[in-house]
């Protein structure tokens, strides 16, 4: 049974029917990231230019001579979606000022997987956020370098088995905790950061719409489950994303000018984290001790956010 409240049931019919991300792309069946992109585009609308890091979404969507994109799109390389986006944003500013292109706002949205954002792409992202470009960066986090075959990334969660940090007799998978890029970007003093999950489509789309309205650099970190990499049946993609939120593994919140707000209420109490870990093949090897460690950490991270919601004021009030 899904958690969507009754009044949301008919909300899909209010969503723009135009498909900016066409069918026929080569993503795996049940791909959370493809769905997330499809929904993001609906929230962005036609006046958008997308820059894309190398990754699943780039190779599956634009294989010469076809493209799934019904929006202007540019891909250059793996680590540079944010800097390409910075270039596009600057060009639009200059060309619009000089009257060389239409005089209307076109948003630059840079997207990348966790690989192209959290690890190799972090420098470019940090630079773009620091320079204050008027752009949105969305990270689609499927928690490993999926396109190249499920290798470990900085966003891979503690204990997950990946091909470069596999579980075995001497190892329980990834030894380090997940890198919290949302907080790193917030430390760049950007006007808006948010976390999202594709299983909560309206929360995600609302955040994309909000980021569009805000001038300056914005960042959204969207969890996009990967049935292939997480070793799940394809049809469970949305269910596992929901469990991630219900167990507190992926709390959904936004920070506007420093003010934290939880956008999908955390369950009181949270569902036990084992409900989220058990269905996934990448966690199958975990011992009860490790699961307890994860449970404790999840609770702490949720409390951290609740603490920030309660105690941190908006930057405007502190100024």
């Amino acid at each position, binding site marked *: 049974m899904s958690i969507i409240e009754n009044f949301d049931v008919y909300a899909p019919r209010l969503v723009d029917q135009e498909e900016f991300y066409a069918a026929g792309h080569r993503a795996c069946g049940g791909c959370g990231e493809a769905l997330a992109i499809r929904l993001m585009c609906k929230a962005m609308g036609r006046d958008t230019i997308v820059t894309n890091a190398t990754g699943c979404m780039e190779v599956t969507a634009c294989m010469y001579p076809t493209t799934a994109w019904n929006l*202007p799109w540019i891909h250059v390389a793996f680590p540079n979606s944010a800097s390409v*986006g910075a270039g596009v944003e*600057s*060009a639009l500013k200059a060309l619009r000022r000089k009257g060389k*292109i239409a005089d209307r706002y*076109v948003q630059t949205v840079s997207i990348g997987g966790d690989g192209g954002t959290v690890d190799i792409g972090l*420098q470019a992202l940090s*630079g773009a956020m620091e*320079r204050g470009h008027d752009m949105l960066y969305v990270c689609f986090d499927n928690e490993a370098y999926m396109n190249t075959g499920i290798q470990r990334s900085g966003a891979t969660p503690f204990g997950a088995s990946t091909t470069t940090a596999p579980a075995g007799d001497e190892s329980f998978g990834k030894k380090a905790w997940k890198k919290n890029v949302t907080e790193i970007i917030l430390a760049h003093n950007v006007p808006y950061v948010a976390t999202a999950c594709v299983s909560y489509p309206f929360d995600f789309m609302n955040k994309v719409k909000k980021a569009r309205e805000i001038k300056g650099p914005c960042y959204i970190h969207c969890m996009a489950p990967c049935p292939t990499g997480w070793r799940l049946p394809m049809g469970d993609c949305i269910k596992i994303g929901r469990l991630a939120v219900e167990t507190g593994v992926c709390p959904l919140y936004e920070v506007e000018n420093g003010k934290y707000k939880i956008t999908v209420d955390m369950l009181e109490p949270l569902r036990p984290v084992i409900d989220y870990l058990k269905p996934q093949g990448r966690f199958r090897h975990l011992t009860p001790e490790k699961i307890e460690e994860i449970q404790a950490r999840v609770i702490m991270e949720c409390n951290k956010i609740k603490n920030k919601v309660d105690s941190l004021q908006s930057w405007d009030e502190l100024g």
Partner: protein
Amino acid sequence: MAKQAGMEIAFAAAEAVALCRPDVIAAYPITPNTHMPEHLSDIVAEGRLDCEFICTESEHSAMSACCGASGAGARVFTATSSQGLLYMGEIIPIVSAMRLPIVTALGNRALSGPINIWNDHSDIMSQRDMGWLAVFAANGQEVIDMVIQAFKIAENRDVMLPIFVNLDGFQLTHMVEPIVFPTQAQVDKFLPAYKPYAAVHPDNIVSMGSLGMPDVFNEFKKAQDEAVINSKKVILEVWKDWEKAFGRKYEPIISYGAKGADVLLLTMGSMTETASVAVDEMCKEGMSVGLLDLKLWRPFPSEEFKKAVKGAKALAVMDRAVSYGGTAGPVGAEIKALLYDEPDAPAITNYIIGLGGRDVTVEDFIKMGKEASKAKKGKPEKAYEIYGARGS
């Protein structure tokens, strides 16, 4: 009325770029080209240039931002050297493959290790096969002329390729020379506004940077190769237009007394002027010596080169980069390959000179010229020589 000024060449290059009205400049500083982006940012700050200047956090991001901006239809420029060029190295072949006409000024500097900020050509030579056009300036006037020409060449619809304008680090970038500047009106006439082949914008939807499967990749590379080869036509046209507009002549290979000479020296960049003094000295002594100044590196001007060396008995090729364990320096190997099938090709001696800012004097060129004149074909002393290495 053309303006003449005594100016540091890097500053002059910046002024020349400003005359071209770029829309976006994304740059990261690295010695010795730093004065170029610095002065450009001054020009923007003074309000003399309407341009978005992005101080990126790395060279990789600088070239990436240039890609984004060029992809969006802007005229873009960046500058770098050595390690900076290598750091943006991942993007370099992509720019050419995506057919983005990005103009990049290289203040040629040695590649590290050991770290060395002074001048040689190891940085540009490492990018030989990246599909970029490349020209070499020998003095300050050539630098600013070539920068302006570069935009026109790169943006031509029959070219659509990025281009390196090479100027020797410190030897040119930091020298003050008398330079004649065209006026803004003259440059506007010579170089009209950029009309991109395609631009990412919702008004005309395009996807740039697609995946090339094995069944098309080969053809893409063929198309790219043909584009670089055919750009020579456009380069020669632009140089003709330049001569008409400004009176200064440019050719792929400039001959300095080379016609009919027995012994030829080949140089690129600022060393040309030193070598020309050496050639004068050798001619005074009665030798039959001439100098070839190679201005166009990519596409390589094969026909012009074969013509230029026809009849010469000896050719000293001056490289300024090492191809460790190879058969010759980068330029030496290129020329040997070119002349392999030519009947009566000259005996080639390949010197690698001026690495990491090592000074090369008139006396050195005279020594090399005399040595090269004694070379016999089929009996090379050695494949190449790193000139002046103590202990060898």
